[in-house]
């Protein structure tokens, strides 16, 4: 794409043209945008948030729940964008991005001028969110979207990478997620600013919410709120949406978040290195060992 065309599209995007905005986002994602298009914020926003990561295990209902939340916000006049991440195949590099299937807010002509949804594949990134999402979110904010939700790949207990890209973290859980010990385990739940136990219409949700609250009470720091929701039936959605809108940072785990940011940046430098694929080939063929590979990728070319 020529520089002139990109400059035009940038201008149109900032003026509110959604097609131009979508194209600039593609350029950012592909790494073909001029570098100065976006500058992601370096600090965690402690007052009003701009970006919020929604994470949790696969199948707990993140998409349906966020669709319901966006419907409420958009109806109140907020302009909200959702970056929905799904995994790329580690074998083919392809991806089936299916989050839109469950989205009705984007199809509702009454409110869809206030809703933007974009599907994103993880591509070469490890973890539940590619770091490039940070730049895409920053660009959406520049285009006048007020709140950006980042829905991660369905992820497990140790997946903390979403902490690198967002001001706030909401963890969505499902009912009957094992016994009470599951709620005591370390990991993602410790970084949450809010926990939503979804599918509250099913058995076990209230018990699980109770276990989580008990677990947080033991912290002594006054953990995040734990709310019950049913994205499908709409129960608790209004309360959850309102709680999310005004969500304050728990202030916990700032160091852990910064660590994730640092690691994510470092990983991006490696995967963007011009020799990255050649080094991988060398590792497969046995002509390089891991130590050599790290030396070759530690240059400043990225």
């Amino acid at each position, binding site marked *: 794409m020529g520089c002139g065309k990109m400059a035009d599209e940038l201008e149109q995007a900032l003026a509110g043209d*959604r*097609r131009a905005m*979508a*194209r600039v*986002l*593609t350029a950012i994602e*592909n790494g073909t945008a001029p570098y100065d298009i976006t500058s992601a914020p370096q600090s965690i926003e402690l007052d009003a948030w701009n970006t919020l990561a929604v994470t949790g295990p696969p199948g707990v209902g993140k998409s349906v729940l966020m669709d319901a939340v966006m419907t409420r916000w958009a109806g109140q006049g907020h302009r909200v964008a959702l970056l929905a991440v799904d995994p*790329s*195949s580690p074998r*083919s*590099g*392809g*991806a*089936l*991005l*299916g989050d*839109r*299937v*469950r989205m009705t807010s*984007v*199809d509702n*002509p009454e409110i*869809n001028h206030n809703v*933007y*949804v*974009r*599907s994103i*594949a993880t*591509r070469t990134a490890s973890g539940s969110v590619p770091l490039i999402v940070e730049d895409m979110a920053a660009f959406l904010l520049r285009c006048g979207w007020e709140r950006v939700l980042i829905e991660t790949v369905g992820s497990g207990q140790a997946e903390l990478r979403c902490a690198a890209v967002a001001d706030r973290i909401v963890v969505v859980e499902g009912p009957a997620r094992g016994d009470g010990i599951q709620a005591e385990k370390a990991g993602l739940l410790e970084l949450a600013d809010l926990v939503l136990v979804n599918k509250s219409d099913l058995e076990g949700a209230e018990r699980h919410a109770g276990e989580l609250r008990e677990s947080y009470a033991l912290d002594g720091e006054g953990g995040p709120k734990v709310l019950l929701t049913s994205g499908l039936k709409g129960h608790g959605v209004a309360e959850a949406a309102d709680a999310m809108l005004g969500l304050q940072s728990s202030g916990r785990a700032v160091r852990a978040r910064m660590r994730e940011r640092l690691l994510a940046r470092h990983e991006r430098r490696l995967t963007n290195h011009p020799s990255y694929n050649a080094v991988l080939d060398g590792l497969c063929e046995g002509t390089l060992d891991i130590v050599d590979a790290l030396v070759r990728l530690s240059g400043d070319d990225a």
Partner: protein
Amino acid sequence: MDQPLRIVVAKPGLDGHDRGAKVVARALRDAGHEVIYTGLRRTSQQIVDTVRDEDARFLGLSSLSGAHAHLFPQVCQKLVEAGLDDVIVFGGGIIPDDDRPALHEVGIRAVFGPGTPTSEILEFIRTAASMEGVGVGQGSRWHWDASA
């Protein structure tokens, strides 16, 4: 590898059969593309909005309901109206041979029937992606001769 192509696979109209669309979506995924599936029963406008917001290079339309002659051209027209004339559109489903020339006429570059090998669809994607000016509203006369 080059950047993956972004491809929307859509089911317009009142048609509850999506096995074919899912098979095609899977084949495209396994060939390294990023496939955005819309789900069932979408209006033309919803499909066009999705193509715009997802910045898709290709749009695949699937219909087994018999409404292709009405819905496919409607989607193409709305794409052009929305300034998405460079999007490459292909279709598939239960689409009689007699109906195909009219679809090619409105800018649909391939129509695949039952029994089409998925390898042929991938070959079409490769070929069309390497051509200039074969978007739905770019006035090209070219179309792919499908084997089924």
